């Protein structure tokens, strides 16, 4: 069963008086529980595609179904609710909330979901243990290394049990060893939590972790090689 179905997706950005096409009619279907890497050079449209799938950007035209629901016609409140309940995000620059410590960052989405503080804390503690940061729960992001921050981001993305986790260049700001460990962790969490992972990268070394690779170039899917 497909968790994501994209048809004829186009996305244009205005740039002064001109329109720059970022996506030029993308068709893509993602099966539930998959672990996909979107690869392509800088400016190819990877981030735009992830943003549209993640409901943080809007398509100019085309159809995007997430969990069987067409998202292009939803209002901001509904879209935000989908982001909260169905999607987890991992960013290249970690994007943790600096005034919250590790455990608070992880439980943050649960509190937005109006879960009780105790329930949120319990789930966050489980995840913090799974990502190997049990000793750092009281640390603020500024007190963590890049790899540790990304682990926190992974735990935060997974804390709501989302259908999909989107990771935009999750290893770009990490050294190769840490990057590999992060991808290992993502893969492990994919297996453990049965969550669909889609991550973008332009690093050919990380492709070995993907079950499926989608190559994007100039705003279109070039070809879909079989995953390693």
């Amino acid at each position: 069963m497909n968790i994501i179905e994209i048809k004829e997706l186009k996305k244009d950005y205005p740039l002064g008086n001109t329109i720059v096409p970022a996506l030029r009619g993308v068709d893509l279907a993602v099966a539930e529980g998959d672990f996909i890497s979107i690869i392509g050079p800088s400016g190819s449209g990877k981030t735009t595609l992830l943003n549209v799938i993640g409901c943080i950007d809007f398509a100019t035209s085309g159809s995007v179904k997430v969990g069987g629901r067409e998202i292009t016609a939803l209002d901001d409140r509904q879209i935000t609710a989908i982001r909260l309940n169905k999607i987890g995000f991992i960013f290249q620059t970690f994007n943790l909330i600096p005034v919250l410590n590790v455990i608070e960052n992880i439980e943050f989405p649960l509190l937005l979901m109006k879960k009780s503080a105790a329930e949120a804390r319990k789930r966050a503690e489980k995840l913090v243990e799974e990502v190997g940061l049990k000793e750092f729960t009281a640390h603020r992001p500024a007190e963590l290394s890049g790899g540790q921050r990304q682990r926190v981001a992974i735990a935060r993305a997974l804390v709501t049990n989302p259908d999909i986790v989107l990771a935009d260049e999750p290893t770009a700001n990490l050294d190769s060893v840490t990057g590999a460990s992060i991808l290992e962790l993502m893969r492990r969490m994919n297996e453990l939590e049965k969550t669909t992972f889609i991550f973008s990268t332009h690093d050919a070394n990380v492709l070995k972790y993907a079950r499926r690779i989608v190559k994007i170039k100039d705003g279109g899917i070039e070809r879909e090689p079989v995953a390693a």
Partner: protein
Amino acid sequence: MLLIRLSLRNLLRQKRRNILLGSAMAIGVAILVTANSFSHGISDIMFNKIMRYVTGHVAVRFNERGGVMREIFRDKERVLAAIKNEPVIEEADESIGMFARAIGNGRSDNIVLVGIDTKKGISKKALKEMEASFRLVEGQWKDVENASIENPVIISEEKARYLNVKKNDIVRVRFRNMFGQDQAARLTVAGITRNDNIFMQAVTFLELARAKELLGYRPYETGSLSLTIKDPQKNAFALAGRIHERLKPGAAVIYASAAGRAGRNPVMLLGYKSDNEAKKKISGILKLTAGSFEKAFKKDGVIVPSGLARTLGVSAGDAINIRYDRKFEKTPKEASYHISAVCSATGYPDENVILMNDSGFYDLYYEDLPAGPGPEVKPYSAARGAWDGLVAPEWILLKRTFNTEEYKRKYQEISRNKWKGTTIDVSTMYETASDILKLESVLNIITISAVLILFFIILLGVVNTLRMTIRERTREIGTMRAIGMQRADVRNMFILETFFLTLFSAVIGIITGFIVMRLLSLINFQPQDNPLGMLLVNRHLYFLPTFPGIAGSVLLIIAIAVVTAWFPARRGANLPPAKALRYFG
């Protein structure tokens, strides 16, 4: 809770910026609280330390024959009955005072002689307040009762200095008594007070009974009554209304006997109103059988019904002798009048009634108030029908007014109408001195205007700070929105930050305000004959912070800050998440 936690922690992120902005806000709040307390203090001085002693919280005033200076009511007990059983009344004082020219040792000045009743019981609270406002530096209050001293008085320190007199010196005074006659008296300085307020420096205290005697009052007569009550703001108007209701007058009746050539007969003397409108009505009602309306409508006009004239054996032009028992004197009162007109019984109020022009009638009535009708005499029942409103009442009860404008108009009316009877006016200090309340409002408006300008400048700071904060945290906003935070929550988070910053600043501002007030009130001013002395209590600035005043100031500032924060906060919240995440500041 999540938003509150985030807002509070975010406040600590830009400590220096927030401390600077918060300090500016705290200074604004401190100014507002101080200024507000100062204007409240002025009102309190005016109402509770000046007006209270001048008029009381509620006053019952009398003006005989509409003479504004003739403040006398001839039946003290009657009016005291109207204020009996009122638990809100703390003190009821006869307000007996007069302007006088005082001549001391080589210098003269105006003073206000005020009668005080030291024999009457006084509550501890009233005594404490009195002693706080008028502190004796020489002598004792009881000295004004000393019968061995000629008219002992207690005079203010400033006035004594000006008149060049000291304790036991004689001060001569010239004044006009109740009836407009110039009088002179010798006063002995028995005590000296140091007063709170410049307004009170002219006040010279004299024992109430002596003051009344000097002014020409008899023991059963009274001047205006000043009532000090509990919680005047709450109770004054209601109490004035109740007293007013109880003072509604009946018809003024003298139960007398009249003697003519044929003998003496019981009669009732009534006054008829003698204004033009009343005279026109009366001339339409009565059918004269002898005499003329021209004579009857004169000040000493007397109208007798034909039946009574026959019984007494008199006719128009004849004299009759009137005799009646007086309410406060043992001997009866006797007076002679000439009959101006005799009329038929048709339309006449009662067969035993003698009608008198109200002007002459009140002369007799007020000079010696009559006793009641006696056990075997049928009391007069108020005239109905044609005579309704034509019979002179016991007094004229002035309508209640509720602000200074109405009050002024009422007194202008008194001088225009030339009332023949005594007017009674029940008023509160809120109408006699609502201008003072206006003064407080004006002071508050000036303060608030100044502070609003200050706050406008501060709030530009709030907007600027918030815009900078939002710009710095654009990616954070994008992250929160991407994670699933609704726009309203993002907006509220920034508004809460401003709210908490303002709240903490306000608390610090209030504390600062109290410290400033304390420091300012420690300064000892020496306002020698300076009107600014009215702003002082015991030579110190007086502040009266009130909970509603402070709470109002804080709410005003928080409301302004929150409204100001709304717009940049909404702009921040409305940023598209993808755009916010792309932002690099």
